[in-house]
């Protein structure tokens, strides 16, 4: 109903023609707007008018330019960081302790027996070879008998070979057979190609032969050091062997909590190996995590200093190490967040046997804003890599993502999973029997830059990054004076024996505690918010023109009025055109004044006229110079206008 009335009114106005002109509208606007410039344009003399007009234009363009800059700044989503440092009651970090050696040698000997025999024999020959004249290759007679007993099939899956650098045409010497083979096979580019300048100093090198497709296509992986080659070979072989052993058995072969953790003290409260959560870590066998927070609340530490931290005594029983698998002896330990998986190879540190290692901890946190401020992930759900460490119930981390990504690549190209990483569903670990090519496949994958880059690109870092900065100090422990009784007590507690079953090479003391300042938090906040943007926009507008949002609305209103006037003008112009045409079509005499007067006064006449040609009637009225019917404009400014006229009149009078 209202709408209809509104339309009728609009139509009425359309028919009536514009109430006022553009100039009137502008003058009115300038006089009444709240922005500072326009008022001055109309108030003062022509020179000043000119100046103010330009000033206003200049300021308006400045405002828009600066607004553009501000909006751009806002859309770049900058952040500012704030740093806080101090001491507060915090969750004690989860502490993972492992033995550097994954399995007890005494328990895995039956699995590794063949390999040990092989490598012993191989080493013997390699060492012999260096001593002898290189031109009479390998006197093998002495160990001919032994080699019969060796499992050469295991060896031939992944043999080590000697490379004689003094024979560029026939460099490859098999270790257990005396044949030399030509260099028809390609060299792996793993080490720079041997140059003749250094060949004189070193005659022999050890390389690993990696074959696929039943030994038809092989590459040799060079090593500058025989020690490295032996270690690498052993790791690959043992991986294949352990991959076939079920998990439960592997756990049994590792170090048990009660053997490893001899004493534990957290703050003033005693704890023991039962406070530790066992997980099986493929690198280090059984690992024990203190305060993982998986099944109970995380412990809280509210005091700095060694007295209130965690004190541990560990035994790593070094005599039970697998000789070829691990060369460094000690405990591996790592501090990490609750409910996160410990990646010891990346973040772990060593603790040396026979020492007391004190670790002061500072929690270095970085809290970042997510999208769109930075490209990080809150919980890893938006990362395209399937997190294989979900099975441990642990949170997302970039290390987990990278490893999952590698395993996925491995499964894709080698059709089996690597032993060091968790398995995706329906895939088995690689071993020499089922996947004879896996070592080749793995080696090429590992050195492939492209695959690594792919994983780096697809994984995202977490938004909250917590690091534990450690201040590590060491001292000899136990001291010579206290050695005796400490070993006695610890041996008794562990084995209930009166004999000393521990020694300096196996025992480690650890102190982990918060430092006086235990946290350093860098947190991000948005540098530019909507509030900031609005206040800056307002500031700019206010600074140059004293304007506000209302001024913008005023301006919009004026534009609508303008359009309205234009529409009305356009319509009247159209009608004028029509009228002209109509006049040419009926070249009668125009209505006389009396007729028109009659038309204005005589209602009946008007009605008839309107009903016959309403358009022409209106047009006639529009064409007439004075409009008796139009109401005077309501605007004040228009009232000023006559004054101007008056002024001009008075001005002219003296002349």
């Amino acid at each position, binding site marked *: 109903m209202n709408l209809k009335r509104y339309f009728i009114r609009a139509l009425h106005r359309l028919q009536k023609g514009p109430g006022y002109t553009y100039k009137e509208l502008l003058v009115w606007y300038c006089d009444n707007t709240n922005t500072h410039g326009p008022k001055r344009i109309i108030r003062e003399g022509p020179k000043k008018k000119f100046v103010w007009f330009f000033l206003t234009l200049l300021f308006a363009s400045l405002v828009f330019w600066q607004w553009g800059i501000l909006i751009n700044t806002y859309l770049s989503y900058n952040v500012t960081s704030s*740093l806080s440092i101090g001491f507060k009651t915090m969750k004690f970090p989860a502490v993972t302790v492992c033995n550097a050696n994954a399995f007890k040698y005494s328990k895995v000997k039956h699995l590794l027996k063949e390999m040990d025999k092989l490598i012993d024999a191989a080493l013997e020959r390699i060492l012999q070879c260096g001593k002898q004249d290189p031109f009479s290759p390998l006197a093998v007679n002495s160990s001919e008998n032994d080699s019969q007993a060796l499992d050469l099939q295991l060896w031939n899956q992944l043999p080590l070979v000697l490379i004689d650098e003094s024979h560029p045409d026939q460099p490859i010497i098999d270790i257990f057979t005396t044949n030399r083979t030509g260099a028809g096979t390609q060299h792996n580019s793993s080490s720079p190609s041997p140059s003749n300048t250094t060949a004189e100093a070193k005659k022999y090198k050890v390389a690993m032969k990696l074959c696929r497709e039943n030994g038809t296509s092989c590459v040799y992986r060079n090593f*500058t050091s025989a020690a490295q080659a032996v270690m690498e070979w052993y790791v690959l072989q043992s991986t294949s062997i352990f991959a076939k052993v079920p998990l439960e058995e592997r756990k049994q072969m590792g170090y048990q909590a009660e053997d490893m953790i001899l004493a534990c003290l957290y703050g003033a409260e005693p704890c023991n190996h039962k406070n530790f959560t066992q997980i099986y870590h493929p690198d280090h066998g059984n690992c024990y995590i203190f305060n993982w927070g998986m099944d109970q609340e995380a412990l809280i530490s509210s005091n700095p200093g060694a007295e209130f931290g965690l004190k541990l005594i560990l035994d790593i029983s070094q*005599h039970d190490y697998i000789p*070829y698998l691990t060369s460094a002896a000690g405990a591996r330990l790592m501090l990490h967040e609750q409910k996160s998986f410990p990646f010891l190879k990346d973040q772990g540190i060593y603790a040396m046997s026979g020492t007391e290692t004190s670790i002061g901890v500072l929690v270095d946190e970085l809290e970042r804003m997510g999208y769109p401020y930075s490209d990080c992930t809150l919980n890893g759900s938006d990362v395209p890599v399937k997190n294989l460490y979900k099975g441990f119930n642990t949170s997302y981390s970039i290390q987990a993502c990278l490893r999952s990504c590698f395993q996925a690549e491995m499964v894709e190209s080698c059709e089996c999973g690597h032993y060091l990483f968790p398995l995706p569903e329906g895939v088995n670990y690689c071993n020499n029997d089922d996947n004879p090519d896996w070592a080749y496949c793995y080696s090429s994958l590992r050195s492939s830059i492209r695959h690594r880059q792919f994983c780096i690109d697809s994984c995202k870092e977490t938004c909250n990054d917590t690091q534990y900065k450690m201040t590590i100090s060491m001292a000899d422990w136990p001291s010579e004076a206290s050695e005796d009784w400490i070993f006695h007590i610890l041996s008794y507690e562990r084995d209930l024996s009166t004999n000393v079953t521990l020694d300096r090479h196996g025992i480690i003391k650890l102190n982990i505690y918060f430092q006086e300042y235990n946290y350093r938090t860098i947190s991000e906040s948005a540098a530019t918010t909507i509030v900031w943007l609005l206040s800056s926009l307002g500031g700019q507008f206010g600074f140059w023109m004293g304007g506000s949002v209302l001024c913008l609305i005023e301006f919009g209103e004026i534009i609508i009025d303008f359009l309205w006037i234009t529409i009305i003008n356009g319509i009247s112009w159209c009608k004028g055109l029509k009228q002209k045409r109509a006049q040419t079509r009926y070249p009668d005499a125009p209505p006389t004044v009396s007729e028109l007067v009659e038309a204005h006064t005589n209602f009946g006449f008007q009605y008839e006229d309107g009903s016959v040609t309403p358009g022409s009637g209106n047009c006639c009225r529009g064409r007439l110079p004075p409009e008796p019917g139009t109401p005077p404009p309501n605007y004040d400014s228009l009232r000023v206008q006559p004054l101007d006229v008056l002024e001009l009149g008075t001005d002219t009078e003296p002349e």
Partner: protein
Amino acid sequence: MAAGRKITAKIKKTLPVTGPQAPTLGELMRWYCLNTNTHGCRRIVVSRGRLRRLLWIALTLSAVALILWQCAELVLGYYSASVSVTVRFQKLRFPAVTICNINPYKYSVIKEYLSELDKETRSALESLYGFSEGKPKVRRDAEDRNATAYQYLEKVPLLRFEDLTRKEATDLHSGHKRKIESNIFHKGSTNIGDPQNMIGFQLCDPNNSSDCAVYTFSSGVNAIQEWYKLHYMNIMAQIPLERKVNMGYSADDLLLTCFFDGLSCDTRNFTPFYHPLHGNCYTFNSGENGTILSTSTGGSEYGLQVVLYIEEADYNPFLVTSTGAKIIIHDQNEYPFIEDIGTEIETATATSIGMHFTESRKLSEPYSDCTESGADINVENLYNKTYSLQICLHSCFQKAMVDHCGCAQYAQPLPAGAEYCNYKKHPSWMYCYYKLHEKFVKEQLDCQQKCKEACSFKEWALTTSIAQWPSTASEDWMLRVLSWDKGQKINKMLKKTDLANLMVFYKDLNKRFISENPANSIVILLSNFGGQLGLWMSCSVVCVIEIVEVFFIDSLSIIMRRRWQKTKKWWNSRKAKQSRAPAPGTGPGKQGHDNPACIDEDLPTFNTALRLPLPQENHLPRTPPPNYSTLRLDTTFTEQLPDTLETESR
């Protein structure tokens, strides 16, 4: 003539206003207050009552003061920086790792140069403490004790001080007691309780033997080492560089195995680097051949793993007293200051060094006092590397050394045209050096003022931990194989204590980038200005222009006009006096005008309103009405009329 006048008249008509319309300052102010866009001013004029008006004046003025204060604060705080920390997980450039043996030269080779010095050191030890190390050496020493003159002890005698307070000392070499007249410096023993029985040495200016400095040490160990080092540097300065390089450890000597990023590497990946104090050092990934290695996987297996061969038996007994290697992790463009910030590596252990990379960048001038490239620093960079504070300080000291002592210190690179100090050519250099060093430490050389910190720096935070290596179980085969690796040249079994295993790796590939950004820009500053102006007074630049216009241009022109009129009036009156013809119309005109203006103070009544145009109409032909429409509404331009009347009439 007439046409020209017509044109001027027309111009006058179209552009009529040439000065402020308001006749007096008071009117101008009133007009301004009523018409300005700033708030507050209007209230002053509109308010009724003196108290209220005063209040508004005070409020407006305090608002202006507040604006000025706040804007000053904004300008002063313009050059502040905000810090942003970004973390990016990415492929990281592996830093350069420089590895040195702690012992600079093989003792067996360098012995020929040092035998004299060592002999004297031993004899000094014997006379000081009554023992000599190693039986066979004693015999030999005893033999030639009398045969040779002690040139080193002669030059810089070691002294034993019985009592410092009495300044008496015993010369160890001659056994004479002598009185010490010179200044005594305590090195490393600033607050010893017992000033007795101290060892030290005396350095004298050879040109002026009374000018001596005595350095004392709380422990003989320090004294002997310092004394030895002094002579050692002297001797080394005379040996040509190639010879020194030959005497040091070769890359094959030092490095047994090398493994990087899961692949084997060898000595060709190491760039030799000669360090004056540490002899031959080797830099892994120095970027010299144009390629810089990078790691795309964190963790210990993918970093650098080397086994170092530290030949403990070939160590210099006096120069270095610890065994092991020194490593430093630095950027490819940085100079490795091994002696200052190196990390020591123990033998018979595996040292695992986890790195975490942080890059920081500061804003340079005018935000902080740092230098981007070092080009704006008035100290020549003697090192062929990018600028750092350390480089600047060392270069500055070296420069001062060359200027003061005429020769260069051995531990730092040579400036152009200088040579290293040695006794033969520069007999006084030691004394000079010690003096200069003292000055340097006390910041009297101006070096600390001249050198600025660099704006950007890269830092590798290290987490170092050690484990026993090789483990007892693997020791046997490990040593055998490593001996074989090395043994194709040297036919001997290695010992555990000659070896050190080193692992350097990225803990994670997160790169922290801490950068400073300007907290303000011109746009934001203007916004803040606008906010302040708007908050207190609803003012803008337009208002400022208004203020300038009204308070400076218009006010001045009004004052000038007044002056002009006064002088004219005075002139006229003088003229009138001369002609004795009183000016007609002025007196009555004024009177007639005063009356309506007086009435105008009250609210206009119907009568006054009606009467008002009447006097005006009388004058209209003569005075143009003011152009301000507002002024016209204010009916109080009575003052203007006589003035303009006079000016117009002429």
